[in-house]
């Protein structure tokens, strides 16, 4: 491997590309060649560094960690001469504010411990050598040359690693079950069908550090005795698919995949299979059906995939994160890993924080941190100094938790006991301007649409739940509807075939539990307390604030706003579709929402 004095990471984010990032890369390389520095300085292309609308096109120089922003091709010769030849930082090109290196991940925040995300944004995902330089494939070498499969399973068992897909089943236990089935060949699948809205932890790992997943899968295959593996990646992640394919190709070239890996008699190969936009394929039996080229419909378990999976053969299925963390555990030891976390939930977990919080993006924290610490310390608190209202954990099949739960430790058991679940790690934080009935309706709309239709409770039940919620949001609900909703939710949860239907009513059940008064306000007072539900609100332009600038009138999609320039504008409530654009575009906060 070649060593370089400095690395230049140029953002080739789509927006930067549009602004000429590729020309900058070319010019940089040309200039480095002509100044004889090309063997000392390496130019790399990376994903976004900062907000392109403010900084693009931009680049970062390591190890100096200098962020140059708003560059043009003409700036490059001067930059190369000053920075790389003379070693002087060019202040005038430097980004005006200190920025985090990327707005999804940023620099590690306090209380964060990065294990799964350790390489993200740091190494070139297209280059296996960079992964190897970060101790990559060393765990695999150790496992294959000095450990038996049973020893690998033992070590993983001691680490306490639980499946990161959401259910939290001990990973090594699953491996052991699959290993013990006397049927061959065995298969390995990786669930990269990360479909929960608001969750993008796996995407980031697959895009930025695909080799960690590949290595983890090879180790798991060795432990189980599998000969073929599939990464099932959702079609919405084209970059992840591309990077995975590159990683697999490189691993094959280096002899980490294929026949007789590391000269042992262990052989294993990997393939990426793409989903096609079906959320239910994140359920393991549906995922297996999809890999087999069929409709992604789940089937009853047992038999579990460990006994009958892909092509009817024993199959072990784990989440991206479970595989990605495996090499680190073997490398640093089970004791190291189990020293983090709580009694039953060991190690760290990645979360995607979204919603009304200051720092949205990805985090990785040890289990056991309280929700309060996650929201207010790591997440930076609620946006615009508003009040915290609820947090949805576990995606659309999880539940919402409220103020009283804020001191709960984040672990599998505590969240389940509180009526929600860990899920894959999406955290959606809501402020007090969120209508909980509307949120329940939104999640129900999602699960209803994604219900595969195989079993009746889920197919019909989710539809009926949604109907009632829509009725309530429309202001046409009755108190009986709320009771009916409750019964229906429990029936659907109890009788559905797979996790999708069983979990689908959770958002409704938990919002009913914590925010029943909001439901009642919708049906009895015909009011939406958070002023969200369109049928129950109206917009009004208030007198002194309105300057008559006409911006709202121009932006109204239905031309419901009238008024002369410099005169108070008026919204015709009959025409108004309550889209809220007027409130969004008004520079004077003159548009008021009433319920």
């Amino acid at each position, binding site marked *: 491997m070649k060593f370089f004095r400095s690395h230049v990471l140029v953002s080739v984010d789509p927006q930067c590309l549009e602004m000429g990032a590729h020309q900058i890369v070319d010019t940089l390389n040309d200039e480095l060649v002509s100044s004889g520095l090309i063997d000392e300085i390496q130019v790399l292309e990376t994903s976004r560094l900062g907000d392109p609308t403010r900084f693009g096109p931009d680049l970062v120089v390591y190890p100096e960690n200098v962020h140059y922003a708003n560059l043009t091709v003409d700036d490059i010769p001067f930059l190369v001469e000053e920075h790389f030849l003379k070693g002087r930082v060019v202040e005038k090109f430097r980004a005006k504010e200190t920025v985090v290196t990327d707005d999804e991940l940023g620099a590690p925040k306090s209380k964060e411990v990065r294990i799964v995300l350790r390489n993200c944004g740091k190494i070139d995902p297209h280059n296996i050598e960079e992964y190897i330089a970060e101790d990559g494939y060393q765990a695999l070498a150790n496992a294959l040359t000095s450990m038996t499969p049973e020893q690998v399973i033992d070590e993983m068992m001691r680490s306490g690693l639980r499946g990161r897909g959401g259910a939290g089943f001990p990973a090594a236990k699953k491996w052991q079950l699959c290993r013990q089935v006397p049927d061959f060949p065995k298969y390995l699948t990786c669930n990269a069908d990360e479909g*929960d809205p608001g969750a993008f932890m796996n995407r980031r790992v697959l895009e930025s550090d695909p080799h960690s997943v590949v290595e983890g899968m090879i180790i798991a295959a060795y432990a189980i005795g599998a000969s073929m593996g599939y990464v099932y990646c959702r079609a919405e992640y084209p970059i992840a698919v591309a990077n995975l394919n590159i990683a697999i190709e490189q691993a094959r070239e280096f002899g980490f995949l294929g026949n007789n890996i590391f000269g042992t008699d262990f052989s294993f190969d990997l393939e990426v*299979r793409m989903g096609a936009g079906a959320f239910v394929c994140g359920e393991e039996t549906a995922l297996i059906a999809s890999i087999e080229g069929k409709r992604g419909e789940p089937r009853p378990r047992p038999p579990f995939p460990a006994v009958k999976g892909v092509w009817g053969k024993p199959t072990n299925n784990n989440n991206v994160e479970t595989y990605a963390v495996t090499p680190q555990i073997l490398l640093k030891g089970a004791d190291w890993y189990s020293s983090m976390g709580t009694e039953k939930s060991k190690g760290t977990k990645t979360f995607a924080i979204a919603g009304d919080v200051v720092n949205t993006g990805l985090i990785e924290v040890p289990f056991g941190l309280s929700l309060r610490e996650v929201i207010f310390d790591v997440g930076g608190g609620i946006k615009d100094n508003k009040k915290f209202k609820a947090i949805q954990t576990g995606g659309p099949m999880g539940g919402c938790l409220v103020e009283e739960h804020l001191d709960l430790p984040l672990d599998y058991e505590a969240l389940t006991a509180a009526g929600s679940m860990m899920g894959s790690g999406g955290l959606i934080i809501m402020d007090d301007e969120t209508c909980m009935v509307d949120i329940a309706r939104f999640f129900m709309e999602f699960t209803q649409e994604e219900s595969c239709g195989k079993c009746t409770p889920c197919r019909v039940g989710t539809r009926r739940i949604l109907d009632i919620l829509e009725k309530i949001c429309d202001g046409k609900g009755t108190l009986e509807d709320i009771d009916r909703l409750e019964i229906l939710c429990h029936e659907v949860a109890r009788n559905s075939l797979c996790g999708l239907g069983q979990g689908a009513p959770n958002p409704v059940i938990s919002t009913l539990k914590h925010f029943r008064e909001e439901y009642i306000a919708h049906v009895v007072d015909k009011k939406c307390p958070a002023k969200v539900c369109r049928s129950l609100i109206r917009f009004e332009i208030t007198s002194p604030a309105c300057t008559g600038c006409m911006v709202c009138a121009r*932006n109204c999609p239905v031309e419901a706003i009238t008024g002369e320039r410099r005169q108070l504008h008026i919204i015709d409530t009959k025409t108004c579709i309550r889209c809220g654009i007027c409130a969004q575009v008004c520079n004077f906060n003159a548009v008021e929402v009433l319920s």
Partner: protein
Amino acid sequence: MTEVLTPTATDDLCETKRAVLDAIIAANRNRQGALMVILNETQKQVGYVSKSMQTYVAKKMRVPVSAVHGVVTFYSFFTSEARGKHTLKFCMGTACYVGGIPQLMEKAKQLTGSEIGKTTPDGQLTMEVCRCVGACSQAPVVTVDEEVVGHIKPNKFPQLIKKLLEG
């Protein structure tokens, strides 16, 4: 689906498309579970999987047309109709939903005179909703063809639409 799929349906299966399909099938037919791979490739290269293409794939793969049709209609990424030159997808993830995607959709309908889920009559633009694209920190987000465009501002949005309708 009211129309009957017949093996003779060849409405839009021109020579070029047939050649593309043949190449895709030849490259993948020996894989286990090839159907998904073939359909994914077809969707990517041709842009849609029409009924006649489904029939053709079924015949070549020696599987019932119903099996192919069943898979195509199950997954939302497969479309059986030709699409516009550009595709604009509105992200319906939670963050985007909260961040103003419904309003942007209203605006888009008004600007294009078309509907969500439809292609404009001139074949220029198809508008759709999509599931969370995983870029929630940039909400509200739309995807233009394959590209994610985030932080959409209501006042800048018409320019984006205009570009798609013209270019």
